[in-house]
């Protein structure tokens, strides 16, 4: 028997496999495909204080081994989540992580306060790295002082596990990671999407309504892996690795580079059952390699 349990800053997950915000809806969309109770956790779609319509069509472009999205945090607002969605999904036997967003620090605080009051929510992911909104979003995550400020503000009102989601669109991600660690983050998750663009050579226009969008998928995996390894070596809090994970081997690479847990994003679109396959694959790998506790893999890359 392999012990797949992992501990993120005191919160225990069944296993290191979770699904990334914005790529797994609220979990409900996958009940036909996945036994949600098997997952380590679900990071739900990004939430904001108020209802948001998101960006105009087109919001998506396919790229080489990846995609650009410009959804722009379409959601019905935190109250709708609390009143209508959460009561439905809280029965899933897995950890539910709200992913919170804001245009100004005040918004983040208000959403975090509301999340703090939800019974059964143990953790939240503070998204300071959304590249698809005009105000706030990534702007917080690419400057150390503002990343620190929003982390501190949320820390003050949120008692549970605070995971800060970092933007890869920076010169030195370790600087931001150390900043948010100092500001009270219990864990960091990385990476969010890379700011990218697609152009239609025929129409001579940008493909996305917002011109730029966020790049995800296996294309970004090598950069994400590098950042996870850098951050793992820079901070003491746990790291959740994200970026182009398509299978168990990818997940293990992220763990070896320093991820305590991993998030699967875009791969859910290619294979809605991928999360379960990754869990099985990690277990097989552990068996084959005589690893009794999955935690032994974390940061175990020999350099």
């Amino acid at each position, binding site marked *: 028997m392999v012990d797949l349990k992992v501990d993120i800053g005191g919160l225990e997950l069944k296993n290191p496999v979770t699904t990334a915000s914005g790529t797994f809806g609220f979990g409900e969309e996958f009940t*036909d495909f996945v036994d949600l109770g098997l997952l380590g956790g679900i990071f739900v779609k990004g939430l904001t204080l108020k209802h948001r319509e998101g960006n*105009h069509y087109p*919001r998506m472009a396919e790229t080489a081994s990846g995609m650009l999205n410009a959804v722009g945090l379409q959601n019905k607002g935190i109250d709708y989540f609390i009143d209508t969605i959460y009561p439905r999904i809280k029965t899933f036997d897995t950890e539910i992580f709200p992913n919170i967003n804001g245009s100004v620090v005040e918004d983040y605080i208000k959403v975090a306060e509301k999340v703090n009051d939800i019974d059964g929510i143990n953790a939240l992911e503070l998204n300071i790295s959304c590249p698809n909104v005009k105000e706030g979003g990534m702007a917080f995550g690419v400057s150390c002082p503002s990343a620190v400020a929003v982390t501190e503000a949320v820390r003050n009102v949120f008692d549970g596990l605070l995971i800060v989601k970092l933007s890869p669109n920076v010169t030195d991600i370790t600087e931001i990671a150390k900043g948010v660690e100092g500001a009270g983050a219990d864990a960091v998750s990385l990476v969010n999407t890379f700011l990218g663009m697609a152009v239609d050579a025929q129409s001579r226009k940008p493909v996305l309504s917002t011109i730029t969008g966020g790049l995800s998928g296996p294309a970004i995996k090598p950069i994400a892996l590098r950042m996870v390894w850098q951050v793992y070596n820079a901070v003491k809090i746990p790291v959740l690795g994200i970026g182009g994970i398509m299978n168990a081997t990818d997940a293990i690479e992220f763990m070896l580079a320093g991820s305590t847990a991993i998030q699967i994003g875009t791969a859910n*679109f290619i294979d809605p059952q991928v999360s379960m396959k990754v869990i099985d694959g990690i277990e097989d790998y552990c068996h084959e390699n005589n690893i009794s506790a999955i935690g032994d893999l974390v940061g175990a890359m020999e350099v």
Partner: protein
Amino acid sequence: MKKVQDFKVLGYRRLNKDNYILTLIGEEDIPRIWPGNFAEIKVPDSPDVFLRRPISVLDADYEKKTISFYIKAVGKGTLKLGRLSVGQKVNIVYPLGNHFVVGQQQKVLIVGGGSGIAPFISLGRELKSRNIDTTFLIGARTKEDVFLTGEFARYGRVELTTEDGSMGEKGLVTDHKVFSGTFDFDKVYTCGPDPMMKAVAKIAGAKGVDCEASLENMMACGIGACLCCVSPTKEGNKLVCAEGPVFNTKDLLW
């Protein structure tokens, strides 16, 4: 119940240079598919096609465990789907989306253009089984682009327009005589290029007739998870894959 399933290529029926019907055969039971449902097809062996491609289900045979798609090759993915070998594995996620609603109608008009005709075989069969009088109005560029009329004829009257007049009436579908004179349909279903559907919806609206349209959209997941597909509606942005692809045109901002 949606599922992910491996099928194998059973064969092709080539309609013309760019259009074909791809039939797949599987081993598992096929869940109930409604007219308008679609599948997300993983294009096999295609280095430059990363995401699945949404394609309406043309037809399914629950006994033989086959499912077929009418596809027009417009780009990398649809070209490659037209060149698979018999027996090759194809993975699909299906059935997805909502579907055309068949209610207490007496006489319906179905307007299809281009690859938008795909949902209408199964819809026609459904209407016929309910004894609803059905007229298919199919628009194409030339007579080379007119397909499946034999199939449609089994379920109703078939009217045609071609832009060059090489078959049926000359002009666009909206120029067709069904729209002039008495318009005694009590429901319109449409699928095809956006401008066509908008024009049809406008006429239906003007006549006070209920109209449903199946929208196209760029999709990543097809199951309502990514929020990449979107259509503005009177109630705000809706997901085409999960809240559509079929919309009542009175709810759209057309």
